[in-house]
């Protein structure tokens, strides 16, 4: 045992310098879209990252590009009256929503386990229905959650669809003080955005 330990230690000690090899990782063809590429088309649509084409919501909605740490590809944010942290509306397109399943129903269950993981709200499903999205059948969930300690609540809608074999999602979250009313017109804006989205080309996974 001791001999083995000495041998392994020696090998390990000799190996340590080998691990310090320098060199840049090669940039690979991973279809990373340039999030800064926002093209305004003549028909009023926007092409984002050379991959997504949609009708943008009107001002004061602000386009929020996704980045390496965000879960969404891009989204739209509206600063609502009131305290910024407690009253706001945000909606987004998420190409890798929480969960793993290729089945929409199963994925929606996996998704709900984690969607509000970073808050203290307990979410209930107000409505669940089949919808048409991205040219095929999808699933829409309307949710609400309350956090009495912080005195706030959230209304959300999540729409699951398919891009190739994989499940994608759109979601909107509107936070309000617990005694204030929701602004449901934002949800209509969200629905219009979802209905307008088209993919300019096949996804990385469809071409793999």
């Amino acid at each position, binding site marked *: 045992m001791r001999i083995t330990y000495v041998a*392994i230690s020696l090998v*390990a000690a000799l*190996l*340590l310098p*080998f*691990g310090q090899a320098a060199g840049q*990782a090669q940039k*690979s*063809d*991973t*279809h*990373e879209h340039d999030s800064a590429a926002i093209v305004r088309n003549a028909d009023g649509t926007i092409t984002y990252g050379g991959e997504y084409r949609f009708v943008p919501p009107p001002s004061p909605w602000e386009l929020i590009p996704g980045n390496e740490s965000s879960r969404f590809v891009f989204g739209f944010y509206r600063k609502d009256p009131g305290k910024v942290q407690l009253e706001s509306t945000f909606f987004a397109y998420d190409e*890798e929503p*929480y*969960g*793993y399943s*290729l089945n929409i129903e199963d994925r929606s269950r*996996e998704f709900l386990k984690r969607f509000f993981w970073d808050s203290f709200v307990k979410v209930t499903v107000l409505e669940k229905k089949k919808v048409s999205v991205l040219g095929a059948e999808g699933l829409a969930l309307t949710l609400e959650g309350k956090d009495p300690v912080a005195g706030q609540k959230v209304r959300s809608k999540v729409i699951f669809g398919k891009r190739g*074999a*994989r499940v994608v999602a759109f979601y909107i979250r509107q936070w309000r003080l617990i005694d204030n009313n929701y602004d449901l017109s934002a949800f209509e804006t969200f629905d219009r955005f979802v209905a307008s989205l088209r993919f300019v080309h096949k996804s*990385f*996974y469809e071409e*793999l």
Partner: protein
Amino acid sequence: MEGHQRNLYLYERFNARVAGVSRDDVTTLKYWADDLGLTFPLLSNVSGWLGIIFDVLPGNQPVFDRRTVIIDKNGIVRYVRDGSPDYKDILLFLKKLNSGEITP
């Protein structure tokens, strides 16, 4: 790790499997895998020796650095990337590896 789970069906296409390795004990890994819903194995290397072999345990730090390696089915290390896994890069590499586009 969720990215690996999401791509398992694609790894299968390229005759690849995946495993995670850390210095956590088996029980902790079990709780984490259950929490995330992972179906591929997470391996417990408490002593850290496999991490030493793959140079992810420099100095006196108690945990592994993040690194992904791909070993072909003949036992040769073919791919090494530091940091969080680049899942699309992994898939592109596996496609080439499995088709024979990448030779030893």
